[in-house]
């Protein structure tokens, strides 16, 4: 694990019964770096996220967040982690504020901290004026913004996003992609962004191509293009995933 690595996944494998979901996966995400985990549906992205968040246990390999082993020092590891899951996880019956307060309580934040941080994060998302609205009344894009605000409330060093733009319209998608990239450059948060949408990858991003549970390529975008002999990310992605299928 390098000194700058906030997340380190080391030789992790996982299977559902006989079906291998992840095979000897090793990745690192550094501070201030936006890493895009690119893979088609069923590549193993969500499984990897479930292992990082310890919803499942990784029977082989180790996962460390901020140098804490997720299996051995679970609480300390999870304290530095913010997550936006693929499925919406807000309580629709509660208001935006109540949802955020609940999350803040789980992270042991004081009332004063909650007040300050909720305002900061919701203002950043342009949602502060709507804090007393029931989540059910918000559209998909706004709900996602609230989820991102919630994930950042306790100032994590690592932010995981599992296909957060699925089902959103183009402007909402672009706004979220831009916002998350800004977080890396301004707040120096390490981001691991799982997606199957190639247009969400920036040229400056670190890219990991996952296919059939195996890391096919990893590096900055230019490096990956060079490795595959492609001129675009889309082309490189197709080459790596096609090779995987042939193998």
């Amino acid at each position, binding site marked *: 694990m390098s000194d700058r690595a906030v997340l380190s996944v080391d030789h992790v494998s996982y299977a559902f019964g006989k079906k291998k979901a992840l095979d000897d996966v090793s990745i690192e995400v550094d501070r201030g770096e936006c890493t895009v985990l690119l893979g088609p549906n069923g590549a193993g992205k969500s499984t990897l996220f479930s292992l990082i968040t310890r919803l499942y246990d990784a029977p082989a390999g180790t996962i460390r967040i901020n140098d804490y082993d997720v299996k051995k020092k679970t609480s300390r590891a999870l304290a530095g982690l913010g997550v936006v899951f693929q499925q919406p996880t807000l309580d629709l019956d509660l208001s935006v504020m109540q949802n955020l307060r609940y*999350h803040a309580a789980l992270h042991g934040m004081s009332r004063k901290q909650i007040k300050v941080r909720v305002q900061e994060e919701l203002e950043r998302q342009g949602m502060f004026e709507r804090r007393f609205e029931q989540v059910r009344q918000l559209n998909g894009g706004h709900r996602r913004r609230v989820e991102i605000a919630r994930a950042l409330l306790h100032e994590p060093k690592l932010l995981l996003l599992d296909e957060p733009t699925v089902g959103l319209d183009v402007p909402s998608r672009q706004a979220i992609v831009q916002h998350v990239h800004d977080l890396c450059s301004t707040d120096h948060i390490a981001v691991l962004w799982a997606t199957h949408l190639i247009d969400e990858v920036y040229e400056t991003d670190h890219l990991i191509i996952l296919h059939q549970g195996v890391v096919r390529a990893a590096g900055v975008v230019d490096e990956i293009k060079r490795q595959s002999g492609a001129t675009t990310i889309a082309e490189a992605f197709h080459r790596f995933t096609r090779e995987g299928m042939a193998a």
Partner: protein
Amino acid sequence: MRLLHYLRAMRGIVIRELWRFLRQRERFIAALVRPLVWLFVFAAGFRSTLGLAIMPPYETYILYEVYIAPGLVGMIQLFNGMQSSLSMVYDREMGSMRTLLVSPLPRWFLLTCKLLAGTAVSVLQAYTFLLIAGFYGIEAPWEGYLWLLPALIVSGLMLGALGMLLSSFIKQLENFAGVMNFVIFPMFFMSTALYPLWKIKESSEVLYLLAEYNPFSQAVELIRFALYGQFNEYALLYTCGSLVVFLSLAIIGYNPSKGMMKRKGRG
């Protein structure tokens, strides 16, 4: 600081459950209608056919409505425990359970807090039911209502833990109907909620043994005695013992490397 974190999380989980409860008024009304129908219709109908002898904690002959009132309080808590487990299965399927499980606190503590939150709701429901029953003429000594509180907390925790244990085994929401048929109804009918043990013994020895060892029976007896200002030591020990067993198994069930959360993962 760590202790403060735990306390804040506990308060947050309980408050969230109360917020949800207040938002879902239908749930509150439904939880009350069920025992009230039993009280006003079932008990009234059986009043003349079921005669009850004097037995502790009662010091005189009582009406059947008076006898089943503690059983119906238990019924509220039994259904609430199952409702909580249903919502846990739903939350797990819908994803909101993940928010809880990825927070930086031990899983046993999070599940215990969730249990406390569900119990707080069931205590509110139980007292509301007793208030309505009071207007109907079913009253207990005033101090009984105070003694009832700790009894309701223990019985609510035990029945909630049972629901949590079931939720760790139920993978999909659709399977929940089975719980109704195989857990709630047998537990309720094979208990002292509707008829006393000696009466059950008169008709069937097997049924008597099942009712005697049914944890729900002991929870109902704990409630019954507390409501009349009396302490039933055996019922308390049995209920607490059941709570420890159910909660421990539920925690194992939710452990990512041991229970159902393991999801058959292999390296």
